[in-house]
C-alpha cells in the first residue's frame, strides 16, 4: 500500500512544493503551522485542489491536474479524522458510526464490534455528540472513519485540540491501530513531536512549504540536521528497547544494544519492546566513564558526526551499539573536549529525561 503525492500551490503568503511517498504503517507529516500539512491532507482527501498535483494510491490515480483527473472525495475512500471531530450534530454516536456503512461495499472488512471495543465506545452509543468530551468526540470520529472501510486513514492533528490527559487517553488507541489486526496505513499530521515519536514509522518534515527531510522515524529523529526543524528543545533520538524486569523501587531495567537503562514509569511487561525518546538536550557527554554519579544511565558511544548550529550549540550524532542517539552540547565544549567524528566517549542520560508519555509500544 503506497500513497504517492506531489503538489505545488501558490498561496498569497506562501508557496508549497511538496512530494513524498507514504507506505504501510504510520507516516507522520510534521511542520509548524503554515508549512503545508493541512493542504496535503485536504488534497489527498479530495477536499482541496492545488495548482498542480498528482496523487495516487498503489498506482491508482486519484488526482492528476495535468490530465484534468480528479476522483471526488466520496469515491476516494480515505477515512479522515479532523482536528475538530466534525461529528454530525443531529445524529447520536451509533448513527455517526454507521453513517458511512452503506457506502462501504468494498475495502478491508472492519467489524463494528471490534472498532467499538478498540475505541471503548460501547457506553457512548446512544449519546448525542454535544454531550461528549473532546477525547470522546475524537474517538467517535476515529471509529466513524474506520467503519467507512477506508483504504487509508488520514488524520489531521487529531489530538491538537485536546489537553494532555485526553491525549494520553487516545494515544493507546492509535498505537492499537498501528499494531493491531487492522494494519491500516495512516497519514498522520501533527506539530507535536511527542505524538510523532510515539506513533510514527516514517517521518516527513515540512518546512516553509517544502519537504526538508524524510525517512524512517529512527533515522530522521537521530539526524543532527533535523534538530533545527524539530526545534532544539524537542529534538532527540527515538530508540527501541526491550523491557528486562521491573524492580521493587519503581524502576525498570531496559536493554539496548549497547547496555541497559534504569527508567521509571515503564508499564510494559518484561520482554516487550518499547520506544524511548531521548531528548538531545538531556544527553551529557563525558570523556571518561563517570563514577559515583547520581544518574545510573551511562552508555558508551562513538561520535558519528558534529553539526554546528547557528547559535552557541552543536548537535552531535552518536552511535551506541546499533542504536543512534543525539546530543546537544555547546560549541565551546566540542572544542575543549576535542570532540570529532570517531571519538569514543560516554553519554549520560538522566533517568527522568524519558517522560512516561514518550514510552510507547
Amino acid at each position, binding site marked *: 500500500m503506497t500513497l504517492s503525492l506531489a503538489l505545488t500551490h501558490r498561496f498569497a503568503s506562501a508557496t508549497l512544493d511538496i512530494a513524498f511517498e507514504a507506505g504501510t504503517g504510520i507516516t507522520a507529516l510534521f511542520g509548524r503551522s503554515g508549512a503545508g500539512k493541512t493542504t496535503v491532507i485536504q488534497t489527498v482527501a479530495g477536499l482541496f485542489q492545488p495548482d498542480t498535483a498528482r496523487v495516487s494510491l498503489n498506482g491508482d490515480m486519484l488526482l492528476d491536474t495535468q490530465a484534468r483527473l480528479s476522483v471526488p472525495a466520496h469515491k476516494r475512500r480515505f477515512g479522515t479524522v479532523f482536528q475538530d471531530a466534525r461529528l454530525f450534530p443531529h445524529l447520536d454516536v451509533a448513527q455517526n458510526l454507521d*453513517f458511512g456503512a452503506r457506502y462501504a461495499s468494498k475495502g478491508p472488512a472492519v467489524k463494528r464490534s471490534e472498532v467499538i471495543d478498540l475505541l471503548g465506545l460501547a457506553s457512548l452509543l446512544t449519546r448525542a455528540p454535544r454531550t461528549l468530551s473532546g477525547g470522546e468526540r475524537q474517538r467517535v470520529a476515529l471509529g466513524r472513519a474506520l467503519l*467507512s472501510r477506508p483504504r487509508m486513514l488520514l488524520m489531521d492533528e487529531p489530538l491538537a485540540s485536546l489537553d494532555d490527559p485526553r491525549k494520553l487517553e487516545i494515544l493507546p488507541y492509535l498505537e492499537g491501530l498501528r499494531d493491531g489486526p487492522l494494519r491500516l496505513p495512516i497519514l498522520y499530521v501533527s506539530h507535536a513531536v511527542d505524538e510523532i515519536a510515539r506513533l510514527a514509522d516514517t517521518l516527513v518534515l515540512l518546512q516553509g512549504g517544502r519537504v526538508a527531510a524524510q525517512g524512517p522515524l529512527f533515522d530522521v529523529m537521530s539526524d543532527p540536521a533535523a534538530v533545527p526543524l524539530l526545534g532544539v528543545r524537542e529534538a532527540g533520538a527515538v530508540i527501541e528497547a526491550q523491557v528486562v524486569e521491573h524492580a521493587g523501587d519503581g524502576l525498570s531495567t531496559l536493554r539496548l544494544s549497547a547496555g541497559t537503562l534504569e527508567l521509571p514509569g515503564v508499564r510494559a511487561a518484561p520482554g516487550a519492546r518499547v520506544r524511548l525518546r531521548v531528548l538531545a538536550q538531556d544527553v551529557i557527554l563525558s570523556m571518561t566513564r563517570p563514577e559515583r554519579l547520581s544518574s545510573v544511565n551511562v552508555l558508551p558511544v562513538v561520535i558519528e558526526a558534529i553539526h554546528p548550529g547557528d547559535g552557541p550549540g552543536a548537535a552531535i550524532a552518536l552511535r551506541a551499539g546499533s542504536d543512534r542517539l543525539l546530543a546537544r552540547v555547546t560549541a565551546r565544549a566540542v572544542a575543549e573536549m576535542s570532540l570529532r567524528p570517531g571519538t569514543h566517549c560516554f553519554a549520560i542520560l538522566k533517568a527522568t529525561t524519558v517522560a512516561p508519555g514518550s514510552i510507547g509500544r
Partner: protein
Amino acid sequence: MTPDAAAWEALRLSLWVATFATAFAIPLALWVAWVLARREFAGKALLNAAVHLPLVLPPIVTGYLLLVVFSPTAPVGRALEAAIGLTLAFRWTGAVLAAVVMGFPLMVRAMRLAIEAVDPRIEEAAATLGAPRVAVFTRVTLPLIAPGILAGAVLGFAKAMGEFGATITFVANIPGQTQTLPLAIWTALQIPGGEKQAAIMAGLSCVVALGAILLSEWLARRVAARISGP
C-alpha cells in the same frame, strides 16, 4: 353571528391559495437560498436584489408588474397559456403567483440564514465517509436546516394569507375566484352594513393566524428535538 357563505368561500380560497403558494415556493426558495448562501457568481448581488424587491416595492407596483408580464396579451402570459394552458391574470392561479412573489423574500431570508449556519466542513466530513453529494444534502444538510425551512414556510404562508395589494392589482377581486379573506374583508367594509361580516372574517383571520403559529411552534420543537439528537 355566523360567517355567511361569502366569508366561508373567502376563507377556503385563502387557505387554498396560501397552501399552494407555500408548497410551490419552498423548493424554489430553498434553491435560491442555497445559491445565495454557497455560490459565488457574477450577478449574485443582482439576484439578491431581485429576490428582495417585493419586500420594498409598493405591493401595487408588484401587482402591476405581474400584470404587465403575465396578462394574456403579454408575450409571457400568452406563451404560458399556449404551452400549458395556464392562465394567471384574474384567476386563483394568479393569486397563488402573487402570494409566491410577495412571500419569496421572507422565505429565502429564513432559509439562507439556516444554510449559512451549517458548517460546510461537516458536509466535507460526510463526503470523506463516502456519501455522494445528494446524500450529503439529504442526510446532513437537510436535517440541519429543517428548522429554517419550516420558519420560512410559516412566514411564506402567513404572507400569502395576508397578501392584499399585489393580489387585488394582479387578479382583481372576483368572489369565489380571487377574493381571498383580506379582499373579502375590504369589500365588506365598502358596503353599508357590511361591518358585521367584516368583523366575523377578521375573527376568522385571527383564528387561522393563531393556529398557524401554534402548529409551527409544535413542529419547530419536534424538529429541534430531532436535530439536537436523542
